[in-house]
C-alpha cells in the first residue's frame, strides 16, 4: 500500500481534506536538518542572557524565576539538584515540589507546584529579624548572613510561603559504618556534606555549633552560581524546561517575554509581598 492509499483508506472525511494534496500524489520527502527552523534550547538562551545581565550594574538587574506549571511533571529533579548543589542536610529543603492529587482513586490526576523562596520585594521575613541577619541584598535576593543569625526562627514564623527551614545539625552520613574500605564511613565521606559554597564562601559545618547549624536557611537563587554566569541548579536540571531564570529588567530576555503574558500568577498576591517568582498556568 502506498502512503497515499493508506491516508485515503484511514483518514476521516475532514482529515481527508487536509491530506488531499498528498492523496493526490504529491511527492513526500524528508526535510534535511538544515531546512528545519533553528530552535535554541531555553537554557542556552538564558545562559547568554545571564551573562548579558551580569555586565550591567548590580542595582539594574532584576532576577526573577518563572515556573511553567503546565510543563512540570513532578520529577523532583530540581529539589534533588538543589540539595546536591547546596549540600543541604537532612531536614533542610529549599525547593520542594508540592503535589496535589485531584479526583478520587482510581480516577486521579496530579498537579505539581515547585516552591522556591519567592524573593519577595516586600518580604515579611526580613523586617522581623532582630539583628538584620536576613535582608534583601543589592540584587534584590533575600539572603541570610549565617554569622549574624541568632536562630530565633521569627523569619520562619513570618514567611507565608513556608520557604525557610532550620538547620538542626544533621548529616546524611551520620552513623554510617566503616567497613574494609567498602563503606568509607562518616569521617572520610563527610567532606562532601561539608563543602557547601552558599553565598560564595565555604561552610565547613563540622562542629555542632558551626553556622549554618543553628541557623535558618532558604533558597537564594544559587547566588554563588549566578555570579559566575551559571544558572541556578534547579533551572539547569529541569527535564521539562519548566523553570526559567533571568533578568526582568532586560526587555529582550526570555523571562520578560514570559511574565508579560496574561496567564501568569504569583502566589498569595493578596498579602502584598510582591514575589519575584512567577507561575505560568
Amino acid at each position, binding site marked *: 500500500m502506498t502512503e497515499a492509499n493508506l491516508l485515503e483508506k484511514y483518514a476521516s472525511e475532514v482529515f481527508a481534506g487536509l491530506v488531499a494534496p498528498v492523496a493526490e500524489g504529491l511527492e513526500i520527502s524528508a526535510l534535511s536538518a538544515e531546512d528545519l527552523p533553528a530552535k535554541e534550547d531555553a537554557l542556552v538562551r538564558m545562559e547568554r542572557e545571564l551573562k548579558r545581565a551580569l555586565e550591567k550594574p548590580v542595582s539594574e538587574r532584576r532576577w526573577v524565576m518563572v515556573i511553567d506549571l503546565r510543563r512540570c511533571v513532578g520529577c523532583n529533579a530540581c529539589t534533588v539538584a538543589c540539595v546536591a548543589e547546596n549540600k543541604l542536610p537532612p*531536614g533542610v529543603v529549599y525547593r520542594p515540589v508540592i503535589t496535589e492529587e485531584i479526583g478520587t482513586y482510581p480516577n486521579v490526576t496530579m498537579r505539581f507546584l515547585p516552591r522556591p523562596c519567592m524573593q519577595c520585594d516586600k518580604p515579611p521575613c526580613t523586617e522581623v529579624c532582630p539583628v538584620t541577619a536576613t535582608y534583601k541584598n543589592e540584587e534584590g535576593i533575600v539572603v541570610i548572613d549565617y554569622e549574624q543569625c*541568632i536562630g530565633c526562627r521569627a523569619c*520562619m514564623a513570618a514567611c507565608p510561603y513556608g520557604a525557610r527551614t*532550620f538547620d538542626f545539625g*544533621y548529616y546524611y552520613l551520620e552513623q554510617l559504618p566503616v567497613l574494609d574500605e567498602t563503606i568509607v564511613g562518616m569521617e572520610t565521606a563527610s567532606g562532601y556534606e561539608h563543602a557547601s559554597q552558599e553565598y560564595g564562601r565555604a561552610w565547613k559545618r563540622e562542629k555542632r555549633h558551626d553556622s549554618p547549624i543553628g541557623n535558618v536557611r532558604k533558597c537564594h537563587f544559587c547566588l554563588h552560581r549566578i555570579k559566575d554566569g551559571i544558572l541556578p541548579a534547579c533551572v539547569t536540571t529541569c527535564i521539562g524546561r519548566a523553570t526559567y531564570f533571568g533578568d526582568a529588567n532586560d526587555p529582550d530576555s526570555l523571562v520578560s517575554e514570559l511574565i508579560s503574558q496574561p496567564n501568569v500568577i504569583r502566589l498569595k498576591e493578596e*498579602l502584598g509581598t510582591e514575589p519575584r517568582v512567577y507561575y505560568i498556568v
Partner: protein
Amino acid sequence: MIKKISYAVGVLALLFGLWGVYVRLFEGEQSANYGSYISWGLWVAIYLFLAGVSAGAYMLATFDYLFNVPQFKGTGKTMLWASLVTLPAGLASIGMDLGHMERIWKVYLQPNFTSFLALMVWGYTIFLILIAISLYLAIKAPEKAALKAVMWIGFVVSILVAGGVGFLLGGNAARMYWHVGLLPVQFPVFAIASGAALMLLLVGWFMPSLDGKQRGDLLWLLAIISIATSVAKLYFLLADFTQSLYGGAVDNVIAVQSVLTGPYRFSFWVVQIVIGLLIPLLVLPQPKLAKNGFVAGLMGLFLLIGYVAARILIVVPGQIPEMMPGQAEVFHGPKLSLAYTPSLMEWSVTSAVLGFAILGILIGMDYLLDYLTRVMEAKK
C-alpha cells in the same frame, strides 16, 4: 510543710532540669521536638507565660505602692521580687530556644528596630532594670516620691511589654490564628490574671505573717480579681473560637479544631478548662474557701497551670496550618513535621527554668528580702 514541699519541688525540678540544660548547651537542639514547621514550641510558650507573670506581679505591686489599696499593704516587695525572678526565668527559656544564643549581644549592639522581637528584647531589658530599681527603692525608702515615680513608669511599661508579647504573635499576618487584633489587648489581661494567681499562691501558702484579717481580705480580693480575669479569658476564648469556626477561614478552623478535638484536646479541656478555669471558678466565689490559705494557694497553682496550657495552646496551634498545603508530605526529613509534643529534653529545660523561679522566689521571701532590708537599715 507546704514550704518544705515547695523547696523540695524546686530543688528536684532544678536537678532534673540540669540534664536538659546540659544536653541543650552541649549537644544542640536535635533532641527538641520543635522543627521547621512548628518552629516555636514549649520554651516560647513558657517565655510568654513567665513574662506575663512578671508583668502581672509588677502590676499587683503597684496596688501597694501606687494605689495604696489597704489589703495589699506590705506585699509590694514580695511581688516586685517575684517579678524580678520570673522575668529572667522567662528570658532564659527563650534564650535556650535560640540556635545561636551566644550571639544575643547582637540584639543590643546591632539591633534591627523594625523587628518587634528586637523591640521586645529592649523593652524587657528596660523593664528588668525598672523592676530592680523599684525593688531597691521599695527596700530603701518605700515612702519616698522616687518610688512612686519609678513605679508609674514601670506600671506603664509592664502593660506595654505584656501587650507587646501579644503583638509579637498578633502582628504576624502569615498566621491567621495569631493575627487577631485583640491579641495585644488580651495579653495585659492575661498578665494581671497570672500575677493575681501567683499572688494567691504566695499569700495563701507562704505569707502567714500577714495580719489575719488583712490576709483574709487580700485573698478574697485576689479571688475576685482571679474570677473576673478568668471570666474575661473565657469570653476571649469563646469569641476567638466561635468567630474562627463561624468565619470558616481554613487556617483558623484547622488551628481551633486541633485544640478542641485534635491532638491538644486533653491539654485544652482537662488542663486549661477544667483545672485552670472551672475548678477555680467553682471554688473561689465561696468566701470561706477563698480565704482559706491552703485552698487559695491551691487555686492559684491551678490557675497558673491553666495559664501555661493556655500559652502553649496559643503558640503551637497557630503553626499547624501549613503555609503551603501539602508541603509537609512531599519532602521528608527530621524536624519536618506538623505534629508537636515537647520532648523530654524540652520538659527538662523547662523544669530547670521553673525550678529556678520557684527557688528564687522562696529564697527571696525567706531570706534575701529580709537580709537586704537589714543591710539598708544598717546603712541609714
